[in-house]
């Protein structure tokens, strides 16, 4: 950090400002116009979306799928992270790569391969198939987040507990878990946010009649622009941003860096 850093040229500053304008002006316009009435300002669009049964159902579906898939990812992901960080076994490298595939794989391909698989197995598309599909990608993020936390932890603490006669189960709950918990919570929040926000994988695995919020917004936008979509999008933006801010605040608290 002590190295002297040059001031970037004005040209870089202008391009950067332009980039942020391109990113933020559309979003800001959307938010502002969600409160816009023909004359003056209003909350009407918000009351309108909350009296729309389909939107409420979509919101409920998003929360349901998000919660269940997060819970599954946390349990499976924490266990897998422990194995990857604390043991050496043949095929560990392959398993490591496997856990990264859902992150790099195009969501379209993940969605359609699961669609084929569900239809092949005769699974009815709906909340169940969506949860299975969401876990398939959120699991990876939980594994990576928990692993990062485990890497920053001294494995000798667990060894000491074992040497002092604690059972593996006791070691986990009394030593490992309390230390790794921030990683699990961050991973869980990340998983929930990703699930809540997902469109593509859901698009393929939702089936008819079980929309999540992003699906609902997508089908509404197909018909053009409207203040209701602005309001619903703003709501969705706020919900995701709250999740992200909580993750960010936690990370700041937990990492000494």
């Amino acid at each position, binding site marked *: 950090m002590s190295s002297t850093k040059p001031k970037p040229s004005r040209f870089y*500053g202008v391009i950067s400002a332009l980039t942020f304008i391109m990113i933020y002006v559309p979003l800001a316009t959307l938010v502002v116009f969600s409160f816009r009435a023909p004359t003056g300002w209003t909350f009407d669009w918000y009351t309108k979306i909350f009296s729309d049964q389909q939107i409420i159902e979509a919101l409920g579906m998003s929360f349901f799928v998000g919660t269940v898939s997060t819970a599954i990812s946390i349990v499976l992901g924490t266990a897998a992270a422990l*194995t990857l960080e604390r043991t050496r076994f043949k095929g560990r490298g392959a398993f490591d790569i*496997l856990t990264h595939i859902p992150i790099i794989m195009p969501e379209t391909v993940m969605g359609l391969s699961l669609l084929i698989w569900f239809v092949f197995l005769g699974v009815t598309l709906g909340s169940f198939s969506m949860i299975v599909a969401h876990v398939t990608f959120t699991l990876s993020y939980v594994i990576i987040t928990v692993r990062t936390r485990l890497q920053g932890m001294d494995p000798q603490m667990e060894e000491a507990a074992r040497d002092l006669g604690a059972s593996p189960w006791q070691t986990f709950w009394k030593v490992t878990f309390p230390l790794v918990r921030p990683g699990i919570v961050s991973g869980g929040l990340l998983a929930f946010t990703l699930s809540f926000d997902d*469109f593509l994988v859901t698009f393929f695995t939702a089936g008819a009649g079980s929309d999540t919020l992003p699906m609902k*917004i997508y089908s509404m936008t197909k018909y053009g622009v409207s203040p209701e979509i602005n309001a619903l*999008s703003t709501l969705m933006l706020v919900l*995701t941003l709250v999740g992200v801010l909580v993750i960010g605040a936690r990370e700041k608290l937990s990492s000494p860096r």
Partner: protein
Amino acid sequence: MEAVASRPIARLDRRIFLALPALIWFLGFLLIPLFIVVIYSLATRGEYGAVTFNFSLGNYFRIFDSVYLKIFLRSLQLAAVTSISCLLLGFPVAYVMATASPRWRQILMAMVVIPFWTNFVIRAYAIKFLLSDYGLINSLGMFLHLWSEPIYFSNSAFSVWLGMVTNYIPFMILPLYVSLEKFDFTMLEAARDLGASSWNSFWKVLVPLIKTGLITGLIFVFTPALGEFVVPDLLGGAKTMLIGNLITEQFMKTRDWPFGSALSLLLIVAVLVSLTIYLTNRDSRVQH
């Protein structure tokens, strides 16, 4: 990390079984589905979307039909334009971030990451709304008498470009920033002191040392952009067919799953190639 490995392992560590549920999950819902896609790609579509498993390469030959080749070229072109635009716009942002004070760095980082976390359907819609006939841009233009009739911005190449770039630019900025943050900027001064022009010190000193970030950023943008279909669909008015739309149509409309499977395997191949480049690129950095 490797120091742990040298510790003698007296007995089988039973903790390896903890990975079993996740392993089974990935096998059952990631690898087997992919395998099924391979099987389907070798089948043929029958009546009413039924599938005949006759194991032919017909679907792959169909890809070489000029109609589809044009679609691929168009997708490659869009992905390339998006990647280069993201690089040109994202590099200055990453540079400004890397040279900013810690406080500004945090603010800028938040500004880059926040859109990353906003739903891309919403972002695409926001652009559609901004550029719509009576949206902000047109209202402003007409209010200022710059033009008198609403300009038809939406469903244009411009709105697709804007949607793609703003969608993928964080994927470019973040790896570039990581590389630039580690870059020792005094090296540029040294190069200048030794008589290098700013052009030379940029290309011969800075670029080679941030190569990892550059390549990673390009891959992170190009790969997902290649299969993108929602942004062009919402902002381009679903007029231009791309690989992403073509694949989706095979599954949602035409119900030609075997052909759709063959097409999606092409995307997977593209990803595998990118992944290989990314990993070798990353490894070479570790060895330095």
